[in-house]
């Protein structure tokens, strides 16, 4: 596959995995948690590097998942002890992120891990860092994202109805004997690994837009959660592809263009969605 092909595939996988997981954050009204986890993940990656002394993807996944769950748990604990929820989120993730930044500047100066890269990602470098699987040379980041996307798809289809019910009506889920807290942490674990997988490509800041915007677009398109998931993957992939070509055209940052493309797609959906678009609502208001 060509250099460009790998970049496009990687970007689409970011869009699809984030879009899928992000849907649940939207319907649970928890998008701020995505912001928190995606930033804290930096600390997980640095810690994994310091412990294992390697930039191997598996260590990073483990480190980031643990820190992602610790973040969720810390936010919940602060909130339960009387701190407002948005304040708890702000306190926890900025602290974790800051510790990550300090650790990088102290210990990891000489490796392929710097603050700017962590914040913005660098998808253009991805095709040069490869390994060989079944005789095919594929970029490491792409391979990891492929596994993460497959894993997320598997988990969501296996626990679809439990994820749906705990999102819509957690109280009923409790009376039906579902482990509501466990399902919550399962979802947060998914958010964490998706964030790590996308980290290399788009960085800690812009992965938030990939987690939130495609789901927000899809939310305006349909009344069915299953359909929303499909739309969200589509919107995620579309913003990745449009963003990449936009970046080529403007000779600008790829991750920045991808997020901007997501924003433009959202505006378009907001106006023109056949279901909940502004135009549609305006027209129904006129006729009724």
């Amino acid at each position: 596959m060509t250099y460009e092909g790998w970049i496009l595939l990687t970007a689409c996988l970011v869009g699809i995995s984030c879009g899928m997981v992000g849907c649940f954050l939207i319907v649970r009204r928890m998008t701020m948690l995505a912001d928190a986890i995606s930033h804290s993940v930096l600390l997980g990656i640095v810690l994994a590097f310091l412990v294992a002394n390697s930039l191997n993807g598996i260590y990073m996944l483990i480190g980031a998942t643990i820190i992602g769950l610790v973040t969720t748990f810390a936010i919940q604990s602060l909130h339960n002890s009387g701190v407002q929820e948005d304040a708890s989120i702000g306190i926890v993730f900025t602290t974790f992120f800051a510790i990550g930044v300090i650790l990088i500047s102290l210990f990891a100066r000489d490796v392929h891990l710097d603050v700017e890269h962590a914040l913005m990602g660098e998808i253009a470098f991805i095709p040069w860092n490869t390994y060989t699987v079944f005789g095919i040379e594929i970029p490491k980041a792409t391979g990891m994202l492929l596994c993460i996307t497959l894993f997320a798809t598997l988990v969501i289809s296996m626990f679809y109805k439990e994820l749906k019910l705990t999102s819509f009506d957690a109280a009923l889920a409790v009376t039906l004997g579902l482990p509501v807290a466990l399902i919550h942490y399962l979802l947060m674990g998914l958010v964490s690994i998706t964030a790590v997988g996308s980290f290399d490509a788009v960085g800690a800041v812009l992965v938030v837009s990939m987690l939130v915007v495609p789901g927000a677009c899809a939310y305006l398109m349909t009344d069915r959660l299953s359909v929303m998931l499909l739309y969200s993957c589509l919107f995620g992939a579309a913003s990745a592809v449009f963003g990449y070509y936009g970046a080529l055209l403007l000779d600008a940052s790829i991750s920045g263009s991808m997020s901007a493309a997501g924003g433009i797609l959202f505006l378009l959906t907001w106006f023109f969605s056949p279901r909940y678009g502004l135009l549609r609502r305006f027209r129904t208001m006129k006729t009724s």
Partner: protein
Amino acid sequence: MEALNVKDLQVAYDRKAVLDQVELSIPQGSLTAIVGPNGAGKSTLIKAILGMLKRSSGHISILGKPYNPKNRNVGYVPQRGSVDWDFPTNALDVILMGRYGHIGWFKRPSKGDIALAKEALHKLGMADYADRQIRQLSGGQQQRIFLARALVQDAEVYFMDEPFVGVDAKTEKAIIDLLRELKHKGKTVIVVHHDLQTVLEYFDHTLLLNRTVIANGPTEQVFTKDLLQKTYGGTLAFFSPTGDKRVMS
């Protein structure tokens, strides 16, 4: 037999007891109203019994056995305001959620589950609304969806949190008909109720609650001026069943 038995229940927020020393038992096959002023802890009582809120202490038995959601003998109708009505789902889908406990992990609703959900929709006069996004339903229709969902849970003991709030007369009638039908089938229905005027007419058993149990027994024994005054304290605009309004102070 007792449908519900609660011993030594205490619930605290920020170390302040909201419910204290709650002891009660509800007979099987009764239609029970939980009545008390705002802030008396009526919803809290239900949530603590069903494990949605943490109890500081307390033992709960349902039908003689320690309460365990996995026995699937309890149905729950939450307050209408407790869910997000903008959620991407439709009426039939919400009713199907009541079957999730029966369906089990890794499986999808079967044709039988869908048939049951449709039957429940039909029973509550909502057959034409199966595909409606739930925000597009009226308050009464939303409440009926919740009841249909409880119905397909096929439970023995139902807990309902203010099902009559903000519904139209037609829905109120549909709800009370359904409650009576459940009672007729030997089920127990426990309802948080705020409308004192209808307690005597609708319920055969009443629990008066204000932070603790004030009285608990057959409605005609419990629903008296003295006990109500004790429950509500201070002044209470009391509507007698015959309709004349008296103010007790």
